[in-house]
């Protein structure tokens, strides 16, 4: 990749994070929790996006961000109160900024005139207040700087000479800033003469090591642009007193005792000591668990992490292989070796979990995109929607998160468009006019459960059934349970045509959601009460790299069944197995009959147990088809396996989810139970059609 391109990539990655931070801050403001920290976070995010965008020449983005930033600055300086209507404009501006970033990334055009003029209106309305109040704002206020940004920037009256009085406060050092570096930065703008003012330094006995006593008088010559000076001090404005004024040309140079700062100047001793102490204080504060404690993170190339994950996977396999060998050749010494191996297994499992944890991220990154979607949908449908996010901190594998966005978007669309009623309908039904959509995530027994629920009208089962009959998905006289009817909405080709709007029903059905979730190894649950609302829950694995599986033998082959789908295993009696029709078989499980299929027959494996009564039956729960009994030869064991995809080297085979490598180094296939079942059903249907045709 060309270096500029990779820097750009990094910029866009940062943009994603910054946009999230911005959204978070804006929502806090919307909820009335607009503390200065939240406002600052929003401001910083927009400012950084603008700064980076400028470096890459994204002009439309920068000009929009600039207008946005100006308004935010007014909010920050307190001249514009973050009231509801202001925040509303800010939220829309945030959405538009996100659009600009997307457009900068992948091309395209964003119409921002409307939002822009609303923003300008806000900033102009406050401009008078600002100029009025600027009299009592001392030099460390940011506002004048931002106004400078607006037009042609440079105040005309200067001849490039400036007098700067710089008085750092203790807080400046506590944030690990360094006056020397700032002054050195000034030397890049022109000739600098800096005089330290030591008048405030007390006697040694009275000296408080955490306090700041030194200040500087700086004369800068040859810098035309005031903005550049402000930029140097940008990050310390809150923590120092700063006076910058232009010197008239005729004025004689002040400061008799001058220290010319050059790059190699050694710090004065007292400056070093004054500064060293706050550093110590800072580390104490950090270990003391201050609430502002920031977690340290590093950005790592995902490939590196994946390589680590793979290596650990190999290690787990090798360990399993060793254990098996030791068990096979066990002797007197065997016990000691086995104990050691058990220890190793524990460590490996821990190592594996730790490595997997590197790949996990909070679901927040997906959830944060939803408030915007809800705002847009609410506006389009004229419905009032309140979105509640729960469990945003729940951590899931990155891959899962990436592939969660689309189905969640779909479900939220569905909830707002089909689920929630219009405000007047709601009031008539005795509900508050504002509908609530809850998006939640939680860990539940080793899986993550994500739920989208609404308090709308619920699934209209009669209508769903009627539509399904119209579409030919089911026959009119088919007797379906409520659960089966609910599941119909996930069938390909199902769309309640009467409800098509430009939001849902864009030709992509909920079957896509189902497919996405199934591809992630997840399942969908539906709960609905007419008039009270509906609830859709996605149950997903925490990671796509490992799986708890049951190892079964069929003929001379070994397969892995995902434990998540298994209900129980049993040894069937010959009397429990009943033929059904020409080829079907049913198994009596404590009085209930479930369809039974032979894995050997389904996968065309020869040499296995042909009489199911001689083998083992595993009862599985499949998506869409309910319970099924899978007949296998016997159960080998149960263990965690590392999932190895072969689709990239070959192609997808229906009924096979992936492969894994067993302890003996051989490849075993992981069965995709839902795929198997649908394959089996399709086969049956095909046969039935043939029979009917004959």
């Amino acid at each position, binding site marked *: 990749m060309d270096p500029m391109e990779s820097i750009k990539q990094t910029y866009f990655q940062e943009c994603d994070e910054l946009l999230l931070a911005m959204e978070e801050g804006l929502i806090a403001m919307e909820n009335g929790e607009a503390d200065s920290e939240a406002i600052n976070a929003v401001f910083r995010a927009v400012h950084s996006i603008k700064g980076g965008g400028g470096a890459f020449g994204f002009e439309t983005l920068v000009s929009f961000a600039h207008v946005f930033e100006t308004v935010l600055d007014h909010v920050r300086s307190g001249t514009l109160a973050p009231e509801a209507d202001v925040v509303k404009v800010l939220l829309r501006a945030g959405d538009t900024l996100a659009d600009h970033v997307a457009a900068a990334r992948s091309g395209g055009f964003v119409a921002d005139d409307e939002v822009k003029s609303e923003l300008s209106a806000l900033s102009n309305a406050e401009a008078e207040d600002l100029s009025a109040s600027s009299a009592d704002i001392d030099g460390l206020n940011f506002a004048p700087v931002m106004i400078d940004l607006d037009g042609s920037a440079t105040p005309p009256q200067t001849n490039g000479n400036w007098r700067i009085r710089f008085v750092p406060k203790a807080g400046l050092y506590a944030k690990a800033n360094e006056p020397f570096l700032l002054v050195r930065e000034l030397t890049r703008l022109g000739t600098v003469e800096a005089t330290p003012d030591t008048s405030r330094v007390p006697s040694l006995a009275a000296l408080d090591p955490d306090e700041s006593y030194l200040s500087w008088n700086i004369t800068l010559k040859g810098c035309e642009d005031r903005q550049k000076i402000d930029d140097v001090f940008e990050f310390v404005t809150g923590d120092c007193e700063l006076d910058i004024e232009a010197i008239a040309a005729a004025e004689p140079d002040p400061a008799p005792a001058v220290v010319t700062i050059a790059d190699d100047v050694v710090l004065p001793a007292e400056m070093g000591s004054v500064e060293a102490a706050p550093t110590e204080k800072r580390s104490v504060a950090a270990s003391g668990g201050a609430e502002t404690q920031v977690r340290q993170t590093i950005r790592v190339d995902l490939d590196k992490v994946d390589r680590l994950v793979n290596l650990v996977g190999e290690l787990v396999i090798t360990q399993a292989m060793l254990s098996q060998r030791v068990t096979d050749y066990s002797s007197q010494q065997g016990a000691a070796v086995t104990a050691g191996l058990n220890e190793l297994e524990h460590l490996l499992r821990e190592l594996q979990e730790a490595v997997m944890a590197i790949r996990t991220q909070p679901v927040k990154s997906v959830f944060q995109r939803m408030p915007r979607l809800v705002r847009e949908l609410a506006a389009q449908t004229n419905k009032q929607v309140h979105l509640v996010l729960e469990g945003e901190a729940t951590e899931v594998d990155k891959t899962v998160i990436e592939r969660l966005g689309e189905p969640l978007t779909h479900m939220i669309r569905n909830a707002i468009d089909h689920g929630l009623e219009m405000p007047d309908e709601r009031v008539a039904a005795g509900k508050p006019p504002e509908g609530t959509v809850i998006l939640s995530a939680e860990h539940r027994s080793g899986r993550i459960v994500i739920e989208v629920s609404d308090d709308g009208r619920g699934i209209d089962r009669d209508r769903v059934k009627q539509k399904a009959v119209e579409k030919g998905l089911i026959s009119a006289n088919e007797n379906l349970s409520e659960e089966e009817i609910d599941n119909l909405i996930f069938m390909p080709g199902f769309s309640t045509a009467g409800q098509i709007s430009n939001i849902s029903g864009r030709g992509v059905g909920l079957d896509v959601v189902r497919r996405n979730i199934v591809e992630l190894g997840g399942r969908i649950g539906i709960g609905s009460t007419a008039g009270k609302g509906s609830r859709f829950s996605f149950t997903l694995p925490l990671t796509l790299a490992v799986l708890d599986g049951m190892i079964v033998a069929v003929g001379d082959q070994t397969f892995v069944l995902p434990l998540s789908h298994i209900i129980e295993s049993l040894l069937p009696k010959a009397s429990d197995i009943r033929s059904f029709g020409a080829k079907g078989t049913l198994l009596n499980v404590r009085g209930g009959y479930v369809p039974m299929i032979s894995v050997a027959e389904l996968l065309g*494996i020869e040499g296995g147990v042909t009489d199911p009564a001689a083998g083992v039956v595993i009862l599985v729960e499949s998506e869409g088809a309910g319970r099924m009994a899978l007949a296998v030869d016997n159960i080998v064991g149960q263990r965690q396996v590392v999932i190895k*995809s072969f689709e990239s080297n*070959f192609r997808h*085979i229906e*009924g096979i989810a992936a492969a894994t490598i067993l302890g003996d180094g051989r490849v075993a296939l992981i069965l995709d139970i839902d795929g198997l079942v649908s394959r089996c059903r399709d086969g049956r249907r095909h046969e039935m059609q043939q029979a009917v045709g004959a």
Partner: protein
Amino acid sequence: MDATVNQTGQDRRQYITFLATGQEFGADIMMIREIRGWTETTALPHVPAYVRGVINLRGMVLPVIDLKARLGLGMTAATAKHVIIVVNAGDRTVGLLVDAVSDILTVSTSEIQAVPDMVHENQNEYVDGIAVLDGRMVTLLSMTKLAASLGADKGLDQAA
């Protein structure tokens, strides 16, 4: 032979040649990752017969193709003496089961002839050309086309 000597290095390529039912085939050496002995494969369901299954190549699950069967020359009765050529072609890594590796040949472009038009063989889809050297005739196979054909649904479902 003269042609080889006169050629400049840049349009010469090296090919690994291997035998299958007496015919000699060549594969671009740059595509070959490694050559290993035959190991029992794990069969895949619902795939054509020429897909022998998958093996564990140091942690990677590698599909193995019976080259002879793929070219319509009949199934290989694999023994420990047979070899699997591991090919990196495009995005895919696949194994090719062949009888034996025989030689490494340096072939220049001028020695490669197009496939005669009138020959309509199953294999033509995967043939880049024919190299004629000292009276030997080597069929040069395109590993990329061969590997890419695996991903296509066409023909793969015939056994299903």
